[in-house]
């Protein structure tokens, strides 16, 4: 699979012929310097971007052939995303943030309240539901963002530098949480990071990227 961006007269080969497969329920870490193409690869898996050539197959469905409406439905129902900058909507309360994906999925109101409560419970934020994101610490915000990612019960969790804005203790807590949840829900996790030590502790497989190419792979026990 490739993804090229035109940049003036030259072409940036952000993802340059990568071939990769991830098992159901697997926890995979993508490692590499900035500019190595790991975030682009994650966006391709998330259906936020389309490959220039090649295809992305998720449980037999080819994302590269989907309409933008179908991609939106795929992101809504099959994918949960966690970002380095949390990307919570500052004007909404914690509960409203977590319920937002369910609005797009047209889940009815009673079920929304129940499911958002469950998700927040799962990430250890049972109280503080009426707070705004700005009133929470970084770690707590990332928990909310994780709860939001889980609320539509996706089979794939994509995390883009989830610990990048957190101190190492909090970062570890979050990754513990992600691993526990993926194990208990049987969810596949693909995480982008540049912290090798953390990746080695939590991921089952480490994939190293450089200049848009797959350099090496390391399977952990």
């Amino acid at each position, binding site marked *: 699979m490739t993804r090229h961006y035109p940049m003036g007269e030259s072409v940036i080969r952000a993802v340059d012929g990568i071939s990769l497969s991830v098992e159901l329920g697997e926890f995979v870490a993508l490692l590499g310097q900035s500019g190595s193409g790991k975030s682009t690869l994650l*966006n391709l898996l998330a259906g*936020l971007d389309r490959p220039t050539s090649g295809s992305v197959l998720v449980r037999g469905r080819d994302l590269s052939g989907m309409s933008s409406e179908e991609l*939106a*439905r795929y992101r*809504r129902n099959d994918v949960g995303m966690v*970002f380095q900058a949390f*990307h919570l909507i500052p004007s909404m309360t914690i509960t409203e943030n977590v319920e937002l994906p369910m609005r797009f999925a047209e889940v009815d109101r009673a079920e929304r309240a129940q499911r958002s409560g469950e998700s927040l419970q799962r990430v250890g934020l049972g109280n503080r539901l009426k707070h705004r994101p700005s009133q929470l610490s970084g770690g707590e915000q990332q928990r909310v963002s994780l709860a939001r990612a889980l609320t539509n019960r996706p089979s794939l969790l994509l995390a883009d530098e989830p610990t990048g804005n957190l101190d190492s203790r909090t970062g570890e807590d979050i990754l513990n949480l992600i691993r526990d949840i993926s194990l208990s829900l049987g969810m596949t996790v693909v995480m982008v990071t540049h912290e090798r030590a953390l990746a080695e502790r939590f991921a089952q497989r480490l994939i190293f990227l450089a200049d848009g190419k797959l350099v090496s792979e390391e399977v952990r026990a």
Partner: protein
Amino acid sequence: MTGYDLLELAVRNLRQSKLRNGLTTIGISVGVASLVAMLSLGVGLQQMATRRLAGSGLFDTVFVTSRQDFRGFDREDDAKMPHPEQAPVLDESARDKITKLPNVMEVEPEIRVMGEVISGGETHFGFVTGLPMSARVNEAFDNLKGKFFSSNNADETILLTDFAKELDAKNPTALIGQEITLRYGERQALPQESSGRPELASSENEAKSSDDYGFSVVRKLQRLRVVGLIDSEPYGGMRTVSRGRIFLPVGTTERLNMAQFTDMRSSLRGAGGKSYMTLTVRVKDPGKVAAVQDAISQMGFRTFSVLDATKSLRRFFTVLDLFLGIFGSLALAVATLAIINTLVMAVLERRREIGVMKAIGASDQDVRRLFFAEAGAMGFLGGVLGILLGLAIGKGINFGTAIYLTRRQLPAEAVWSMPPWLVGAAIIFSVVVSLVAGLYPASRAARLDPVQTLKYE
């Protein structure tokens, strides 16, 4: 996303920047208010004009005149007809023929003669006109003190209040129930053996009435009981018979055989007796007016009905409404630019948020509809506020004109009227205009690339 969720999110977003969206909404409401105020002014003026016409009791009435007496305004049409001097005269036989037309209820002449009322040794000049009995039903009067005529033949009179004041300056209403003396000119046939009696031109011209050979105008007195007073001229001052100060039942004026201006002609014509200036023909139902009018035109007479008046009136008001609408829309056009500006700003400000929404499952369509909903909500709110503001402006206009009219001692009249359909139409229009203004910002928001907006900055 469901419609309710969409609206909830839209309203929440609008409340995020209250000042900016509030100002834009006020802008829309000013636009809607100016449009509504202008159109309501048009509607109000039209209603006022129509009210005048309705008060004239003309909707079921056709006026018939001879083309000898009145030339039309339409010269081209006139040229196709025979020369006016060859046109038939409105005489008894014409009156009979018209009375026998289908759907005709009553045919009354319009009689307006000069007269004098003698009171307290003084004489007071005034025009005397005959009112048909239908005048009461047609609401020809705004405000009648006392009673209407008891019959078409009664020796009774209704006076204009102004005239009554001439007779009794202190207490004109005391005249009701009193008798007054009217001096008028009677058309009196020449005595059979009169020396000045001319021979008929030919044997075919048989005498048709007793005064066919000639008549004299003789001064007469008649006692009349005052039964009522009216403040303003009947029929909104729009008919020949309106322009008088002493009103009698039309039957009484005919019985008294009052001499009229047209009598000069009948004294010169060989035969035919009396002729009339104008006949008013009442039709059974307003829907039949056109047919009756047509039939009378066929007989060679000039006809006029309110149908003709409303036709040109409607044309005039369509043009007026168009211009008022264009001026009113200008402010709304400016408001449209404000909506576009506000929403484009919102798209720029919420780039990140739009990207997040897309990443967690919003489709392009959801984003587009969200901005549409915001535009629509502003439009709706602006429309409602605009209606209220427009109502306030209208009340102001009516209040102002009322003061102006009262100072000039005219009855106050509403020149501004907001019909219910305009309320609905203005709100719908405001929403539609806002949605159109939202087209560009919404599609711009929908096109945003989430990968670009979510890059860590």
